[in-house]
């Protein structure tokens, strides 16, 4: 099944964010959308997630896939325990016992099995982000969207969490599309990096990280940075 945005135009009032924008994603791989803040990366995720509909063009292949999300502000429910938060999106999708079992498995995989019964107010920022990672992987879908998910974490913690994300992903193999303006994150996680420029959003370059050296990727990022200065 191909996952594709085709000839999409999207405006908010007078402002045209996307103009005839086309982008295809390789199923089962991690694609990073890299670009300056406010360029419309989040709009792309919202179009994929169905939160927004395009003015023109079409979003193909995502409808039937089941989509999970990891947000920067974690968006876990403060009044539910870790376990109940992970179970929450599963309840309508599978029998209760299976939902509990699945949730517990992924809570274990993100290393929070001791915190299962705790409320978010009793967790650190990194732990909360781990809960939202567990929730995303536990959800029976084929696509995970991430919006600056690790932005608010300090570097050591960020790479630690990125690594556990990658580990779970290797077992799971679903399509990941993530948005960031941190090139370190992009190279650590992304198999494909799509460099974006704004006004309106356009693709500057699209690279496979395996084919490039870290240096050349950093150079593209630098050029993009200078362009947007």
């Amino acid at each position, binding site marked *: 099944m191909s996952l594709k945005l085709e000839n999409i135009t999207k405006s908010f009032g007078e402002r045209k964010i996307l103009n005839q924008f086309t982008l295809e994603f390789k199923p089962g791989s991690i694609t990073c959308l890299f670009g300056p803040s406010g360029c419309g990366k989040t709009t792309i995720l919202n179009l994929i997630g169905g939160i927004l509909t395009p003015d023109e063009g079409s979003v193909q292949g995502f409808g039937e896939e089941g989509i999970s999300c990891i947000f920067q502000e974690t968006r876990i429910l403060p009044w539910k325990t870790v376990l109940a938060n992970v179970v929450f*999106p599963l*309840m309508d999708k599978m029998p209760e016992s299976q939902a509990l079992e699945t949730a517990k498995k992924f809570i274990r995989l993100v290393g929070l099995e001791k915190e299962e019964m705790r409320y978010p*107010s009793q967790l650190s920022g990194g732990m909360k982000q781990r809960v939202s990672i567990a929730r995303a992987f536990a*959800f029976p879908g084929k696509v995970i969207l991430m919006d600056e998910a690790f932005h608010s974490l300090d570097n050591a913690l960020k790479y630690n969490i990125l690594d556990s994300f990658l580990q779970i992903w290797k077992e799971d193999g679903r399509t990941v599309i993530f948005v960031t303006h941190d090139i370190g994150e992009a190279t650590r996680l992304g198999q494909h990096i799509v460099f974006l420029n704004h006004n309106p959003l356009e693709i500057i370059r699209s690279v496979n990280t395996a084919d490039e050296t870290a240096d050349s990727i950093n150079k593209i990022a630098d050029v993009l940075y200078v362009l947007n200065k």
Partner: protein
Amino acid sequence: MPLVANYLMKNSSTRNRIISLIVVLILIIGWELLSRSFNSRQILPGPVDTISSLISIVGKPDFLSSLGITIFRGLVGFLLAFACAILIGIPSGMNPGFEAGFKPILITIRSTPVIAIILLALIWFHVDQVPVFIGFLTMFPILTINITQGIRETDPGLIQMAHLYHIRKKRILTDIYWPSILPFLFSGISTSVGFGWRSVIIGEVLSQPRYGIGSMMQDAHSYLLVSEVIAWTLIAILVGAAFELIIRGVEKRSTVWKR
């Protein structure tokens, strides 16, 4: 003595409680002295007279019926107000058009003097229903406005997350909106019950049903039994305080996640 002072400095909540207690004691002693210096204890009874009236009231066979029926009226008024507030407050919070439709009604109810409503209610309703109606009208706008605000302040990020995960509408309501409005709801309940309880009693004073705290106050008043009026007032205050405690207790239990 320095030890005591030291302890009090360290433990400020104990210290504040002691200060409050001392002030209350001074007020009670002042009250007693004032009533002794006044030439008619009938007109200004002291705390001792009031306590003895209180004891005789509590001992009377009618006491429990009066207390119970007033609480019952308040409760019925509250439940009616609560049900209507949920039915109107939740859609108001989600839909500004719906809110705009009800806002003038709520503002009118809130700004109408209770006494005007009572006068009309006396014409329209049976005396037993007047206090319930008054309680309802007092509590309904407060609860509705709080629920509407709670819905509106629900984190849109959580709602968006629920849409992305295709959570059913019913569960968005019970698992996201409802817990979000709880803090607003409890503050609304606490305020509205405070006002509502007093209005129910005002309603009873004026409509004079057979039993009720307000009816008993009015009876005592017409026989110039001032100490009895004050004693019933004390009872009303104590019941109001008990409500507040119960509401706080329920709130604490239903928001354990706040730690």
